[in-house]
Structures are given as structure tokens and as C-alpha cells.
């Protein structure tokens, strides 16, 4: 059907301009085919169904049918051309008709139309081997180890009933009510079974410190005068008499740091030292992974600076939409809720996208470059490597490797796994070839700063 085609690359936007010419005979044939089709089913007053002569239809709807025929022709012609040429439009983009173009066919002339669409960008890859990259040096210190241990202890602490006097940090359950000057209860001021941790300052009347020293079952009446700048405006500057009854008292027992705790945490630890060693190992692994990620980031920054490519608009838009969806998921909020919050801040979704744009563009560029490098280096993932990775992941989620593999296959994740392996192999090779310069010494907690 396509009589002539003319392809023009617009490099600065990574687009292609495609001009297609279709012979007038083809247009006419298409038009008549459509007309006949409509005549078969058309319903017009005065005619039985399907008995409307095409000439009547043509007179009544001719112009519309012409436009429809043009659309049909464009569709078929485009798919015909796309199956032939190499530069196919991106999945994220729909070919757009050139503005102001005349799509009403005229049987006297050949039909011609022009579309533009985004294509996979042309990438000029800079040199990426033998670069120099600074790598932060991370040392795991006693301090880091202690912090991890502390977190473990906190996780393993348990709550027990406490006899005796309440003290800071205990968990108390109280009933309280306001009393008037004669010492009688003010109706409806009673609250029962209010549980709080003494000292965290979350009680309505701030009676934390007054509870300290009370015993279980004891009732105390206290008089409180609130300063004029008290956090609850209603109470500021007033004086209240409050009765507090301590119903139950519990304390948080922190386990002692010893071999027993280590065994409690996991059977694989025999002694506290085992646990400490393992923590250290884990910290080191985490740090190493993160340092590798930072180094790769640095490397890619350098490669990016030397390469040139243009990210197609539609790709960028799709990426931004993706980030938006991710953002919604992360905040577990409905899209409308987020939009309303943004509105309250005087922002729109578009403003947000504008903010994200540089970041999104960069990450897209990096991804495209990685893709290009994988292609250039001919990195491939073997079956064994895939199996190994799946086995590892299966162990982490305690599934059978076969099960996990079937799941991946069913959901089409296998490709992305392959890609992960390729990427890893690529960077293994690249980093081995990169001159790594030790950079500034960084604390363990600091390397996760600015982490996205």
C-alpha cells in the first residue's frame, strides 16, 4: 500500500519524522470498501436494513467516511512501514500526526501524511574503561557494633509486671479523673485504663512525674497549674485537681548481654562473641555493598559526562509517571489524597514532576548507558548463573528454587533477573578495569546518607 516513504532523523530530540505517500487508487479502494461495508449494516428511514444504496450513504456521510478511510490507511501504512524499518517507535510513545496536516483524502491526488515519533536514542558512549574513581573508605568501628547490639537488646527486651514503686521508663496503666475543690469527681472527666510509658510526656495533664513513686492500687490527688504557654491551649493558664489511680505497673526488662542472649537470638550462635563476629561481618558486607554502589555511581557519572545521548520525551514522561506511582505506594496514600496535600502546599503534580525531572533524566541516561555497555561488551547471563541466583534468593525467602523459578517465569521476572546478572557481570568487569582511588574516610552511618 505504501508508495513512498521518507525518513528523517531529528537527533536533538531523538525523534524520527516519517513521511508516507499512498497512491490515490489505494485510497479510493479503501474508501469504497468502507462504504460497501457500511451499506451492509446501515439503517436509514425509508430503507430496509442493508438495502441502502452506497450512493445514498455517500451523499449523507461521505465526508466522514473519507476521514475514516484516511485513518485506516494511515494505520495500515504505518504498521507496514514499521515492520520494514529498523527504527521503530518506543513503546512509550504513539506516533503523532504533524500539526495542521490535511487528513481528508482527495481522490485526485496521492495521499500524503507525516508523523513524528520517539525512537530509541542514539547513544555515543564515551570511554568507560580505565577510568579513575574515588571510593570512600569505610571502617567499621566498635561504636557501630555497639549500636547494632543495642538495637538487638532493645528488640529482645520483654515486659514484666512490677511490684513496688513506679519509676522512669515503666509502663503504667492508670485511671484518672478531675476533682473539684471539695474533692468530688467532676462528671464525665474520668478516663480508664490509659496506658503510657512514664517519662515520655504524652499524658494529657503531664502527670508523668507525679506517678513516679506510686504503688500499684494507690490513688493520688494532685494539683497542677499549667503555664500560660502550655501545649494544649485549653489548659494553658488553668489549675486543675486530678486524681490518678495506678491500676497496673509493668517494666521493660532488658536482657543481659551474654551468651544466653546470643543463643536466644539464633541457634547458630554459641557465645556472645559469635554474635558480635556475625554482626561485624554483616556490617562489613552492608558497607561493602554500599561502597560498591557509590563507586558504580561515581563511575557512571564519569561515563555519563563523556557520553552524549538525548532521552526521548515520552520515555522521560513514562519514567516520571513510574516514580509517581512508586511515590504513592511508598506513602500508602491514594492518588487523590496526595494531590490534595500537594494542593495545600500550593503545588501541582506537574510542579513535582518538574522537580523530579533532572533526577529522572539522569537515571534514565545511566540506564541507557548500562544497556549500551552490556550490548557492546556482549555480557550474557548463563543458565547456571540464573540458577545460582534463584537458589540464593530462594534460600532467603525459604522457598524451593524450582518453585521460585516457576513463579518468576509465570510473572515474566526472569528477564529482569537476567538483566541483574548481566549488570553485575558488567560492573565486575568494569570495576576490575577501573583505577580506584581511596577517597575520604567515612563513617558507617554516613554512607547511607543521601541514599535514594
Amino acid at each position, binding site marked *: 500500500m505504501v508508495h513512498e516513504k521518507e525518513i528523517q532523523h531529528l537527533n536533538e530530540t531523538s525523534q524520527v519524522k516519517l513521511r508516507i505517500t499512498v497512491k490515490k487508487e489505494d485510497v479510493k479502494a479503501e474508501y469504497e470498501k468502507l462504504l460497501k461495508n457500511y451499506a451492509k449494516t446501515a439503517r*436509514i*428511514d*425509508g*430503507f*430496509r436494513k442493508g*438495502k441502502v*444504496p452506497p*450512493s*445514498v450513504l455517500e*451523499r449523507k456521510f461521505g465526508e466522514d467516511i473519507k476521514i475514516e478511510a484516511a485513518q485506516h490507511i494511515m494505520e495500515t501504512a504505518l504498521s507496514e512501514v514499521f515492520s520494514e524499518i529498523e527504527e521503530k517507535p518506543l513503546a512509550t510513545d504513539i506516533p503523532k500526526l504533524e500539526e495542521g496536516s490535511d487528513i481528508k483524502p482527495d481522490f485526485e491526488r496521492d495521499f500524503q501524511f507525516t508523523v513524528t515519533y520517539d525512537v530509541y536514542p542514539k547513544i555515543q558512549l564515551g570511554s568507560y574503561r580505565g577510568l579513575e574513581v574515588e571510593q570512600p573508605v569505610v571502617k567499621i568501628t566498635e561504636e557501630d557494633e555497639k549500636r547494632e547490639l543495642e538495637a538487638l537488646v532493645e528488640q529482645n527486651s520483654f515486659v514484666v509486671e512490677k511490684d513496688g514503686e513506679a519509676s522512669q521508663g515503666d509502663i503504667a496503666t492508670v485511671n484518672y479523673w478531675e476533682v473539684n475543690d471539695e474533692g468530688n469527681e467532676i462528671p464525665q472527666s474520668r478516663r480508664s485504663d490509659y496506658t503510657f510509658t512514664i517519662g515520655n510526656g504524652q499524658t494529657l495533664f503531664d502527670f508523668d512525674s507525679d506517678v513516679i513513686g506510686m504503688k500499684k492500687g494507690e490513688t493520688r490527688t494532685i494539683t497542677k497549674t499549667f503555664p500560660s504557654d502550655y501545649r494544649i491551649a485549653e489548659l494553658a493558664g488553668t489549675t486543675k485537681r486530678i486524681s490518678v489511680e495506678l491500676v497496673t505497673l509493668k517494666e521493660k526488662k532488658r536482657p543481659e548481654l551474654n551468651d544466653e542472649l546470643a543463643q536466644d537470638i539464633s541457634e547458630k550462635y554459641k557465645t556472645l562473641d559469635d554474635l558480635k563476629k556475625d554482626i561485624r561481618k554483616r556490617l562489613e558486607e552492608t558497607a561493602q555493598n554500599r561502597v560498591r554502589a557509590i563507586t558504580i555511581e561515581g563511575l557512571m557519572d564519569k561515563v555519563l559526562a563523556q557520553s552524549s545521548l538525548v532521552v526521548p520525551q515520552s520515555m522521560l514522561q513514562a519514567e516520571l509517571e513510574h516514580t509517581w506511582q512508586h511515590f504513592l505506594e511508598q506513602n500508602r496514600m491514594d492518588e487523590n489524597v496526595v494531590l490534595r496535600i500537594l494542593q495545600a502546599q500550593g503545588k501541582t503534580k506537574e510542579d513535582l514532576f518538574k522537580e523530579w525531572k533532572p533526577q529522572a533524566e539522569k537515571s534514565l541516561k545511566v540506564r541507557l548507558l548500562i544497556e549500551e555497555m552490556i550490548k557492546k561488551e556482549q555480557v550474557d547471563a548463563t543458565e547456571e548463573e540464573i540458577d545460582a541466583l534463584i537458589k540464593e534468593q530462594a534460600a532467603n525467602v525459604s522457598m524451593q528454587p524450582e518453585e521460585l523459578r516457576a513463579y518468576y517465569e509465570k510473572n515474566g521476572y526472569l528477564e529482569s533477573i537476567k538483566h541483574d546478572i548481566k549488570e553485575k557481570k558488567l560492573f565486575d568487569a568494569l570495576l576490575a578495569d577501573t583505577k580506584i582511588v581511596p577517597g575520604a574516610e567515612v563513617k558507617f552511618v554516613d554512607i547511607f546518607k543521601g541514599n535514594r
Partner: protein
Amino acid sequence: MNTEQIIIEPVLTEKTNQMREVGKYVFKVDKRANKYQVMRAVRELFSVHPVSCNIMNVKGKPKRGRAQPGYTASWKKAIVTLQKGEKISIFEGA
């Protein structure tokens, strides 16, 4: 009555489509018009030469259903025969 008021619209059906092929054109015309007025109107409006004109009154059909029963409007139908070979071009394919 003005010429423009006489002819209201052409009648478009399968049957009139066929009749056109033998030079007979069917119109809905003003109820007050007679054969001569219709022929004159066709001659003046479409620059053709009518030979004869047949006229009939189409009675409104009774309609019953959701609303109150009643009739559709009655109208006058005129079949104008043209000289052999003549055509009214604006109705071609109409």
C-alpha cells in the same frame, strides 16, 4: 403561495430511489398546493421540464403507546414526471 413554500423536502425511500431512475421524482409538498403549482415550482427551482404530476394525501397513522393515543401528521405527496432523459442533479445519489 410562494414557489419556495410549496416543496418541503424530497421523499427518500427505497421505492423513490428506484422511481428516480425512470424520471419520477417524489416530494413532500405543502398541503394546500395543487398539481399545477407543484409542477411550476419544480420547473422554477430545478430548471427542468415536468410532464405530469400525480398527487396524493398521505393520512397520518394512529399511534398508541406510552403517551396519549393520537395520529402522526398527514401530508401531501407529489410524484413529478420529468421529460425523458432529464435529471435533477442535486438529488443524484440522494
